[in-house]
């Protein structure tokens, strides 16, 4: 039962990946016993499962995901949040307020206003409703300092790395607090603007070279070289 590409080879939509008794994994589809790619990415063959690690894909909400979003509308009973997804997410006032929400007495804009950035968690999502958010957990809520970097959501796993190897290296080398939103938004908060700049630089490099190997070491090397260069200026 044949497969047609090497492991981690670059494939494009419509490429025939395998034929026979295989299971269609992420970013593939099966038709007439054949498995094809639906997105451009790197093909993975894992036992009977064929999948493609997409190089570019937008974020589809998943219950339990941590996301970073922007308040785009203040409504009557809650807020609309742009989470870099085809669907606008909703944060209900009842999630934030302890007592019952009274639209006459309570002004939602005093809690979150248009333009505010928040870290939230997705609590519900299905085909007929927009994703629902909560900020009612430790570590969630309004973002008050740091920088936001946006990458294509497909790259977040790469930025985490195997068993967190990449993200731990980044935190260590730059000394920054880095919060990864599954929706492709990343919050970087460091002791200085310079350390934040290094983190942004590193993330951009990971994004561009995510399909290559030996990346963790190369990025660490780049950060060290850059720190040297700045020290010598």
């Amino acid at each position: 039962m044949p497969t047609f590409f090497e492991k981690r080879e670059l494939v494009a939509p419509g490429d025939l990946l395998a034929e026979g008794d295989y299971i269609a994994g992420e970013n593939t589809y099966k038709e007439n016993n054949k498995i094809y790619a639906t997105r451009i990415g790197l093909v993975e063959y894992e036992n009977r499962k064929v999948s493609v690690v997409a190089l570019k894909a937008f974020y589809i909400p998943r219950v339990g995901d941590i996301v970073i979003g922007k308040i785009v509308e203040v409504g009557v009973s809650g807020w609309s949040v742009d989470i870099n997804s085809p669907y606008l997410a909703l944060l209900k006032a009842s999630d934030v307020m302890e007592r019952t929400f009274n639209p006459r007495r309570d002004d939602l804009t005093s809690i979150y206003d248009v333009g505010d950035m928040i870290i939230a968690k997705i609590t519900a999502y299905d085909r007929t409703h927009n994703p629902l958010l909560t900020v009612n957990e430790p570590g969630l809520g309004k973002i008050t300092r740091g920088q936001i970097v946006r990458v294509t959501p497909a790259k977040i796993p790469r930025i985490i790395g195997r068993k967190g190897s990449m993200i731990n290296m980044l935190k260590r080398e730059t000394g920054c607090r880095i919060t990864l939103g599954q929706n492709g938004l990343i919050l970087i908060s460091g002791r200085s603007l310079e350390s934040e700049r290094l983190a942004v630089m590193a993330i951009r490099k990971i994004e561009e070279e995510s399909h290559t190997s030996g990346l963790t070491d190369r990025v660490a090397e780049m950060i060290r070289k850059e720190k040297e260069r700045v020290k010598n200026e």
Partner: protein
Amino acid sequence: MSKNPEKLINEKGLRLDGRKPDELRPVKIEVGVLSNADGSAYIEQGKSKILAAVYGPKEVHPRHLALPDRAVLRCRYHMAPFSVEQRKSPAPSRREMELSKVIREALEPAVFLEYYPRTSIDIFIEVLQADGGTRCAGITVASLALADAGVPMRDLVAACAAGKIDGKIVLDLTDTEDKNGEADLPVAMMPTAELITLLQMDGMLTTEEFEEALNLAVQGCKQIYEAQKEALKAKYIEIKEAVQE
């Protein structure tokens, strides 16, 4: 006004631009050329220059246009006023409206619209310079723009026109060949399963000539498909090679 050439195929069997009857014009494709659009691609096919961009999937506005079970595909084919010999008014013409419709219908079967209910995927095709085959080249880059935007697809859609000039069936007509020839047959397809998603014809062909032209167009589409795949992968292969050094 250009004057009409007397012959489109010379005694050696070559066309005005030196091509053989079954030869494609040189094609140059680049993917990911615009920073704002979710996906984009650009093509030069002979003297035709076409740019395509995709925005979406995103929520549909106005809301009543949304479909409950799938995404809505919207397509706008438009020619820049300076793209043709005699300046064209920027207002959408009837031809542009018809082409917008058939191009949308050519791309729809390739996209997994069912995955994104209540959203719209907007495709914009701008013809910057026109020298024949613009709807085909438009489909070719639009499908790359969709892939570049990360929209999941069954296959890319490749398009190419065949036709008849000076009594001979030829591939990939220029504007002069289309205007002075006997028939024009633009075709688009999903090449892996050979499924045709656009087919139009105007002119005069016997049923045998039609079959010959259809087969030639299908071959042309397959060549375009190779160029599409190469362009899509090129960006990433370049980086991979640079890193390996």
